[in-house]
């Protein structure tokens, strides 16, 4: 690391490992998923095994027959098998004394929908794995279909807005809270607008995975599916935190705590106006969205208070 001659951000100190990915990989311009994927091994180090599945991450993570786009060991498996495949790897590495961090890296579609059963099972068995969900609120790889992480009102290709349709009619699965109820060893939410917070959580995750199950939920807007300008995705992440749409918190042994308390949360409209997937929403829709958000945040606050 070159010493900063002028003011250099101290976040760099967390990213001490080499970038494991090559330049020129097939992720969309401005996609925070690329940054997330690159960040993880920079913090966790090379001794990790990525377990992933068909998703936006797959073409890059899971390489090709004659080569790959990264230097990491990986296992690509079916959508239903991520947490359980990681279990198989982690059990055998531990049994044979191989030092490894097994990291599941999947989208919200896998974590909240098709791959939820093994995820829940692995959490219950307290497997020594880190399960990272990058939440782009839908099936972005296949063309923006709804998932159970898609918020109410969102326009997707399977909940389109039309004469009758007003986007997704039901609210999203509160996945971090669902996972909290599994009482994992460590749980955290993170997003790319707060890289220091993310890095700290990753470091903690690496330690905690030696003792049990770790779940990290990363808010990861999709510039294409959400219809955001590609230079604006970090700003969207920031807005999600500022509005409490995506609060940053962590939980050790099921005891939640906010890692960033927003002093004056902004109204949800400051988040929704940054993208066109919510552009059809009317006042009452936004009010309902705000109500859901407030309800969820109140629950989180209550749980944080209860654990003090």
């Amino acid at each position, binding site marked *: 690391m070159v010493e900063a001659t002028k*003011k250099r951000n101290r976040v760099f100190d967390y990213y001490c490992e080499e970038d494991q*990915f090559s330049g*020129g990989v097939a992720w969309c311009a*401005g996609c925070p998923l690329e940054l997330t994927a690159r960040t993880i091994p920079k913090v966790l180090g090379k001794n990790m095994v990525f377990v992933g599945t068909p998703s936006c991450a797959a073409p890059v993570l899971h390489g090709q027959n004659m080569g*790959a786009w990264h*230097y990491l060991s990986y296992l690509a498996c079916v959508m239903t098998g991520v947490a359980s495949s990681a279990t198989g790897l982690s059990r055998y590495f531990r049994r044979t004394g191989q030092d490894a961090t097994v990291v599941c890296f999947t989208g919200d579609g896998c974590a909240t929908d098709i791959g939820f059963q093994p995820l829940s099972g692995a959490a219950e068995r307290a497997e020594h794995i880190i399960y990272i969900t990058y939440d782009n609120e839908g099936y972005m790889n296949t063309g923006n279909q709804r998932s159970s992480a898609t918020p109410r009102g969102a326009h997707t290709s399977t909940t389109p807005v039309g004469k009758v349709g007003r986007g997704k009619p039901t609210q999203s699965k509160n996945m971090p809270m669902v996972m909290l109820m599994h009482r994992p060893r460590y749980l955290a939410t993170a997003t790319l607008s707060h890289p220091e917070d993310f890095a700290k959580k990753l470091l903690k995750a690496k330690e905690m995975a030696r003792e049990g199950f770790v779940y990290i939920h990363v808010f990861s807007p999709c510039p294409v599916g959400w219809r955001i300008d*590609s230079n604006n995705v970090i700003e969207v992440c920031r807005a999600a935190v500022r509005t409490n749409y995506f609060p940053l918190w962590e939980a050790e042994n099921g005891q939640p705590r906010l890692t960033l308390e927003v002093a004056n949360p902004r109204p949800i409209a400051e988040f929704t106006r940054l993208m066109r997937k919510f552009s059809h929403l009317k006042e009452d829709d936004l009010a309902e969205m705000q109500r859901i958000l407030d309800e969820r945040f109140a629950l989180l606050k209550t749980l944080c208070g209860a654990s003090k």
Partner: protein
Amino acid sequence: MVVKHKNIFKTEGTWSDARKLLLKLDTGSWRTERPVLDREKCNYCGLCALYCPPQCLLDRGDRYEPNLDFCKGCGICAKECPRGAFGMVPEGEFIDEG
């Protein structure tokens, strides 16, 4: 007459081996706009490099400059720079028409 099938592979090798080579795409060609640094404004804080999704900002010791082989032109560096040191310039201006 039936000719029996003969296996053409003598050895088993079923997997990819990432050490052989890294495949790189020409993502530099995806760009429609190019980040151009105003060195006067840059104070080497590094936020551009931190947020750059392809992590293609090269550390020049006193500033960061994009590796144009891979820069996809997303514009995050320009947007996130607190001092507005990067400007996004249309690629067309760099093409030599001759």
